[in-house]
């Protein structure tokens, strides 16, 4: 009920703002999705390396599709019903084969809120990601409305209906390796197409965009990067940032996580409080990276409590109280 109320408010607010800024408001909900060919039969929609805003409608994420002999495999569905619909239309301009399978790399809303537009197609995610979508999907959608406004109109949470199984899976001549990992969230599915050599890394890899950590475990994330680094990858599609052929994405993500871990650890052992940690300097090599400061601030909120808790001891009750 409260959700609906917020939704109505968000819609009303979004409409007012849109009308004030631009009379031709309806034209504004075109994400302008243009598939970028990244390998044989393989395309990506590369989003902007920005935060979610009413200007970009949440198109800040990378999604992809592979046209196999059996039909189209979709990897992540974007931040909204509209994005999913426009993605489907863009796929239809490339091939007349049907979409036969959807994978969600993890539970975050920019990667799965477009699922609704693929209803009827089998959709798979790791069990932890399915649980995350079920439990937090509503709150994710509310927050997307708050940030992106009317772009989200009509978006309903559609949880992936199948549990993805780790291992090799051949679909229409493409041999996919599904790799069950964790670290960015509790269930991160990386998909390596052994036929083309493309790694669909989801948000385990960020490039030239600061990594996000709302459900992260730095320890597990580092281990996941080790696993990905061992694959014979020719080209990588990160969850956010450009397609690349070298190991820059893994290297930069690891570098950021190492710096984050070291910074939070030192801050906690020197007795700093959260708001003080948030204003610590960002190293030169990350200063130009989009969203470095705001993601660092967010990461302090997500992670610092664990570091700080390790430094606190249980104090003794005073003698007076024991009497």
């Amino acid at each position, binding site marked *: 009920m409260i959700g609906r109320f917020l939704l109505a408010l968000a819609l009303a607010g979004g409409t007012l703002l849109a009308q004030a800024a631009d009379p031709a408001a309806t034209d504004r909900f075109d994400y302008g999705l243009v598939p970028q060919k990244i390998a044989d039969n393989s395309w990506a929609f590369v989003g902007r390396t920005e935060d979610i805003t009413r200007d970009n409608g949440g198109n800040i994420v990378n999604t992809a599709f592979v046209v196999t002999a059996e039909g189209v495999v979709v990897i992540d569905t974007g931040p909204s019903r509209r994005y999913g619909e426009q993605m489907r239309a863009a796929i239809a301009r490339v091939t007349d084969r049907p979409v036969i399978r959807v994978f969600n790399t993890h539970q975050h809303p920019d990667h799965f809120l477009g699922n609704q537009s693929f209803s009827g197609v089998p959709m798979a995610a790791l069990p932890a990601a399915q649980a995350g979508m079920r439990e937090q999907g509503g709150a994710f959608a*509310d927050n997307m409305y708050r940030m992106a406004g009317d772009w989200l109109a009509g978006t309903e949470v559609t949880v992936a209906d199948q549990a993805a199984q780790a291992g090799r899976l051949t679909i229409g001549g493409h041999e996919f390796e599904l790799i069950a990992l964790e670290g960015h969230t509790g269930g991160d599915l990386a998909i390596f197409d052994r036929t083309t050599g493309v790694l669909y890394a989801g948000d385990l890899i960020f490039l030239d965009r600061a990594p996000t950590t709302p459900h992260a475990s730095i320890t597990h994330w580092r281990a996941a990067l080790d696993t990905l680094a061992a694959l014979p990858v020719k080209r990588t599609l990160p969850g956010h940032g450009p397609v690349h052929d070298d190991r820059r994405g893994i290297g930069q993500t690891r570098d950021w996580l190492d710096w984050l871990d070291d910074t939070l650890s030192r801050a906690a052992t020197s007795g700093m409080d959260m*708001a003080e940690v948030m204003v610590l300097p960002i190293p030169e090599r990350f200063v130009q990276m989009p969203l470095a400061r705001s993601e660092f601030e967010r990461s302090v909120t*997500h992670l610092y409590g664990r570091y700080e808790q390790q430094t*606190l*001891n249980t104090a003794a009750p*005073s003698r007076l109280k024991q009497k």
Partner: protein
Amino acid sequence: MKQLLVALWLALGLGAAAGAADPLGSSRWPDLQREYAGNAPVTFDSRVEVLAPKVAEDSMNVPVTIKFRNLPDVKRVLVVADFNPIVKVLDYQPLLAQPGLSFRIKLQQASPIRALVQTGDGKWYAGGVWVDAAGGGCTAPSTGRSAPDWASTLNQVQARVFHDGQNQRVRLRIMHPMDTGLAPGIPAFYIEQLAVEDASGEAMLRMETFEPLSENPVFSFDLPDTGKAALRVVGRDNNGNRIDAMVQP
């Protein structure tokens, strides 16, 4: 939205009546100023520094650090969040403490967070920042309420003292639900008073605390170094439960 509020406020002609214009452009400020500073003038002063994130990533735990390093003779620090349903966060007397403190608050919606600092001559100085928030921080039940054993750790203190050669930083975490009374069916239940005392029982700092402080509140204070002597943390909540713990240096 902020600009709209400022415009509205100016249009209503309240600006002249309110004295110095609020640099944060909040429609609540004239009322808050009257309520907390009475007729005394309030100067917005860069020496009163409020650190908080631009966006509240977790509305239940918005970290705030207040600094007033270059203001002499500070007697009292009031912290308020304009648009919280319960505005007052804490009322702090630094006594012997160094000029600053850190804590976390619940935020119900986007709001300025301000420190109003009063010096010995009765003058008020103010600083603050806007924090954007998805909201709901004050009307949600505390998470401890869903754990069966919250009562067994009630008012337990976790602490650590950090020495830098001159001062000692005292960090405290006090286990308490800090219920605002705004979540349906859960009455207000929060720490009301807190003090840190030296070995002789003299208060080194003292404060009144209110519902918007986060659950299991965490504080940081900087005190003159008391060497090997233990500190004592005392206080009570609004149900009369006492807080009383010895913190080893």
